[in-house]
């Protein structure tokens, strides 16, 4: 499948691995792909901008969604747990940022894709076929992420909502970018 990826789409897949190492996650999901798409120059970044989003802010949102990784301060507060106080204690005992690291060591070698990331890549291929494009570029990856029911889709939806627009508008922007190119 990767042989049909354009240079920028390959760069996105590689960059997603780097993001996973940076945030210390043991797998790559669609949010890693979204960060990579929003941080690297290419058709997807242009489309995000054309749809009225700030790509850098989208990347920051996706990154923070990754690092919060299930540690939901509000949900824990509902059980009477003060996450800030747990974090302070963990920092004191295990070193700064220990709780975010969560005892995970730096990973070497291959980091696997989650099923939703695989699904998004597969959908990117399907989008390329639908649009009768010969290769898969970053724009198709973004369309794949938008089609998949996934965490990154939710990050994007929230960003689009805040910008006063929606998913169909972004999808149109992506498709227009490719005809413009």
């Amino acid at each position, binding site marked *: 499948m990767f042989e049909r990826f354009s240079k920028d789409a390959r760069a996105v897949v590689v960059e997603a691995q780097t993001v996973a190492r940076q945030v210390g996650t043991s797998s790559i999901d669609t949010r890693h792909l979204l960060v990579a798409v929003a941080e690297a120059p290419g058709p997807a970044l242009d489309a995000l901008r054309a749809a009225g989003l700030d790509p850098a802010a989208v990347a920051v949102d996706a990154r923070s969604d990754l690092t919060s990784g*299930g*540690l939901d301060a*509000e949900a824990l*507060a509902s059980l009477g747990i003060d996450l800030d106080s747990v974090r302070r204690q*963990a920092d004191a*005992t*295990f070193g700064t940022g220990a709780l975010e690291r*969560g*005892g995970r060591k730096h990973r070497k070698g291959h980091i696997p894709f989650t099923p939703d990331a695989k699904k998004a890549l597969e959908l990117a291929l399907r989008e390329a076929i639908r649009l009768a494009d010969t290769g898969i570029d970053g724009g198709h990856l973004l369309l794949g992420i938008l089609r998949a029911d996934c965490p990154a889709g939710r990050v994007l939806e929230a960003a689009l909502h805040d910008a006063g627009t929606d998913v169909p508008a972004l999808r149109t922007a992506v498709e227009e970018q490719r005809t413009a190119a």
Partner: protein
Amino acid sequence: MTQQTLASAAGDDPAQGLRAVRSLRELADRLEALQVERARALGWSWQQIADHLGVTKQAVNKKHGRR
């Protein structure tokens, strides 16, 4: 916001409750990993760690041993 949070937790909404459980499990997992790592660094054996966690040595080794 706190009022709202408390209300939703008490309002037995499954979504809120499950979200809280998920966070709690994630927090416990991370603290366990950090504690085990530190205990090992302090020279504890897998058996000692297992005893304190109330699990078998095999279980703790599988979860936290060389990966």
